[in-house]
């Protein structure tokens, strides 16, 4: 087996008796775009700061090309970083900001000028050298920060929610730029976000953080179609959850009894699986079919609301027990023509595409 490019081995971080990061491990390939995705407070930034050397881990190690980074101080790690807030040096022009890392490294003047120019070109800000940061928009500032972080060709680029202060439209524009820059430079990127859409759009792989631990690492489609935990299932994409009881389980497939007597078979089950234990059945809204006549093993529901969402229509329904289930159907689907609130309906699904979590 070849040695991984960047390896995070069992990182832990305690603040007094608060555990910010519990046990984080992963291998990252050179040139990979890896995103840490998770809700606020799940330990993403802490992990990133440990990589940057701003925090010492309470345990574990970080290896770059097989060498531990931990004893190297931040300023000698040669890592690039773009922060959540705008961190341009306010007293320096854009050009001087980007030149800063090279000045620190005492590069010759001609080389500095050339590389600054190239870096600004990379982020499409040619000709902005003499601008002061305060006179630039947030999006421009973050692009300058990106140029500054890349100008010294760091092997790894860290980005901690760099777009969270921007509005949606600008955010999408810069996401596109970041993808392009990743492809052009081939730099390895570790990206932190709490926005699943952003993560899906940018990443090669995503590590889903929850309460200081990684629940699952995988590509976007893997996480979506094969979530390892209920948390991942709920965090990536829209989902419905239905309480169920395990009747039998065999080789990761379970037979489940739903509340109103319906029984479904062959559902992939994650987690410990004793018979008659409780489980949570996850159903994607777009994987549900809606029938207006009674079907065996269908879930009986009442239509609550119908919302037009452009190319989709979302039908909000509720089981007699009061559990809400959303169904998403393409616009113009025959099942919903003249469907009215209060109507009775039955929901069915392909059991192999559903997931149950014990």
């Amino acid at each position, binding site marked *: 087996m070849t040695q991984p490019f960047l390896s995070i081995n069992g990182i832990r971080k305690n603040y007094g008796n608060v555990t910010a990061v519990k046990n984080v491990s992963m291998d990252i390939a050179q040139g990979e775009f890896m995103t840490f995705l998770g809700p606020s407070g799940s330990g993403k930034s802490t992990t990133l700061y440990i990589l940057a050397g701003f925090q010492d881990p309470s345990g574990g190690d970080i290896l770059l090309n097989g060498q531990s980074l931990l004893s190297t101080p931040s300023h000698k790690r040669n890592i690039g970083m773009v922060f959540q807030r705008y961190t341009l040096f306010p007293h320096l022009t854009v050009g001087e900001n980007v030149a800063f890392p090279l000045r*620190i490294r005492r590069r010759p003047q001609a080389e500095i000028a050339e590389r600054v120019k190239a870096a600004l070109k990379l982020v499409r800000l040619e000709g902005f050298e003499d601008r002061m940061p305060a006179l630039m928009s947030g999006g421009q500032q973050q692009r300058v920060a990106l140029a500054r972080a890349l100008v010294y060709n760091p092997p790894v680029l860290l980005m901690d929610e760099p777009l969270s202060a921007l509005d949606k439209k600008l955010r999408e524009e810069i996401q596109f730029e970041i993808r392009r820059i990743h492809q052009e430079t081939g730099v390895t990127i570790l990206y932190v976000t709490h926005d699943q859409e952003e993560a899906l759009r940018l990443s090669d792989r995503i590590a889903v953080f929850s309460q200081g631990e990684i629940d699952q690492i995988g590509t976007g489609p893997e996480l979506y179609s094969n979530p390892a935990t209920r948390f991942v299932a709920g965090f990536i994409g829209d989902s419905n959850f239905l309480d169920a009881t395990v009747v039998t389980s065999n080789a990761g497939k379970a037979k489940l009894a739903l509340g109103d007597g319906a029984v479904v078979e062959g559902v992939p089950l994650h987690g410990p699986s004793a018979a008659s234990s409780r489980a949570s059945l996850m159903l994607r809204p777009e994987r549900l079919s809606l029938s207006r006549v009674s079907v065996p093993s269908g879930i009986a529901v009442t239509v609550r609301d119908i919302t037009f969402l452009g190319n989709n229509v979302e039908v909000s329904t509720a089981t007699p027990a009061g559990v809400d289930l959303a169904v998403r159907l393409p616009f113009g689907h025959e099942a919903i023509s003249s469907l009215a609130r209060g109507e009775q309906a039955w929901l069915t699904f392909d059991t192999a595409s559903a997931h149950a979590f014990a």
Partner: protein
Amino acid sequence: MLLDFDKLGGVRTLLIALVALVCLFLILPIVFIAALSFGSSQWLIFPPPSWTFKWYQDLFADPRWLYSALTSLKIAAIVTVLSVVIGFLAALGLDRGRFAGRDLLRALFLTPMILPVVVLAVALYALFLKLGLAGTTIAFVIAHLLIALPFSIISIGNALEGFDRSIEDAAILCGANPWEARLRVTVPAISHGIFGAAVFSFLASWDEVVLAIFMASPTLQTLPVKIWTTLRQDLTPVIAAASTLLIAFTILLMIVAALFRKGRKA
């Protein structure tokens, strides 16, 4: 309506009249002193019978005035440098440190500013007598530094509070070691706070009277001590001349500060 200038009605006239009076009250003594310094009357008769530069000539003819001004300048310069450096370090420690009793420590650093100076002056005088430092430049510097330091800690502390620490972190990741990052990035970014600290420290030392009276010796006097001892004898117009120069100096300082503020905005 009471906070809308255009809708105050009759109250407005009343308030404007009062403000005009207060402005006169505040400015008149200053104008008056400046005028008297050019008046020929030894007894400070106003309006003066005629005009003269005599008091300024007297002032510059007496080397003790010039010498005390130079002493003041020297002490204030040393105090300013020490106050800014020590104040920067202390403000940094207070800003960055996460330890119990931080607020208490900040309050302790600021107490020399709020305690009656005379208590500090007497206490230091006693100590310096014991240490054999009474009447030395060191005694002056230490005493003035004690009351200048709170200004530095407040001014630089406020600036640091408004400074996003991630900017310094960014400089460190760019390859600068922590002190390099502070000197090349943090210090320029909070230069307004440092400038404020320097101005207030300088003024605190330059204008200090009470501590100076106790620190002074017959051979080592600052300008305020010289004015004080002269004032206790008589109200000679020479003091008016000295005061006028001090007022001119103040105005100069205000203009510099205003220009600095304007430059920072642009």
